[in-house]
């Protein structure tokens, strides 16, 4: 399928960023690794600009919340090399108390709204983003709805009878 294999990608990454990334795995054939927020910009721009790898297409940026972990909030990047037909997934975990991470809009214009959506849902602050405001939820909302502690249903509803819902 791909013109270069996951092992080649991994080898190039190891030779350049030895020690800066960890937790390498290949769930369902997609090379996944974790890195820190200090190294993420270097790794992303290396992946994008290297002639052999050329991961020039940013598929998606999203967030995740693991409340039990020490670094509870995660930012997950999916990159795709159209030339080589290979995908890669990069994860960065940051603490809830200080959820900042550099923005990827310097590399890809398409990261703009993806990061706004991640901010809107998880409260992750992307440093250097041109317009980091809420995008999908109402502007004056204070909580971050996709975090695990936020309830799904509106708690202010008065017309739901508990006996119909087994409560």
């Amino acid at each position, binding site marked *: 399928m791909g013109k270069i294999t996951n092992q080649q990608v991994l080898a190039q990454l190891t030779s350049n960023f030895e020690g800066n990334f960890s937790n390498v795995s290949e769930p369902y054939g997609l090379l996944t690794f974790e890195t820190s927020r200090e190294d993420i910009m270097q790794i992303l721009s290396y992946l994008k600009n290297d002639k052999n790898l050329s991961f020039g297409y940013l598929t998606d940026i999203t967030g995740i919340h693991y409340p039990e972990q020490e670094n509870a909030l995660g930012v997950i990047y999916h990159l795709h090399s159209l030339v080589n037909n290979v995908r890669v997934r990069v994860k960065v975990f940051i603490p809830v108390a200080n959820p900042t991470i550099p923005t990827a809009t310097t590399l890809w214009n398409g990261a703009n709204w993806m990061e706004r959506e991640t901010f809107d849902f998880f409260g992750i602050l992307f440093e250097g983003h041109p317009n980091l405001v809420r995008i999908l*939820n109402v502007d004056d909302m204070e909580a971050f709805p996709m975090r695990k502690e*936020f309830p799904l*249903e*509106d708690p202010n*509803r008065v017309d739901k009878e508990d006996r119909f819902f087994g409560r």
Partner: protein
Amino acid sequence: MVNAPAGVEGSGFFATSLDKVIGLARSHSLWPLPFATSCCGIEFMATMGSHYDFSRFGSERPSFSPRQADLLMVMGTIAKKMAPVLRQVYIQMAEPRWVIAVGACASSGGIFDTYSVLQGIDEIIPVDVYVPGCPPRPEAIINGFNNIQELVRNESLRRRESPEYKALLNKYGIQ
């Protein structure tokens, strides 16, 4: 052809009550404002197409300007972010105006019992007819429209000045 209302007929004249004539005329020329937000809007487009032909009921001109519309057809989910907009559109409509809530989401929030979806537009505007379905078939939308036509045909001309109507609007905070 529509049936003439009950009245006294003679050669060259037909006497009936003004309510009935105006109701008849209004009910066959309702101009809808299709407030289509999501999937029900696509079913409305299918209803307006030539297969189900909505315009044969008199709604030849769907108006997108609230000032010129009689019937607000809310089709699709209304999120809480959209609610002020919907209210504004309703307030901008001129009397007499009717509202039809098409689909489960507009009637009651539908399958989206979440923090961001308005659980039924009747939380912010008075609704006349609800059409259930997700999305309702075009036949169901037409049936709902026929119910609106029934309401329009039988409505008294004085209804919009009556205290009950004013109380209804006050309940929603609309002047």
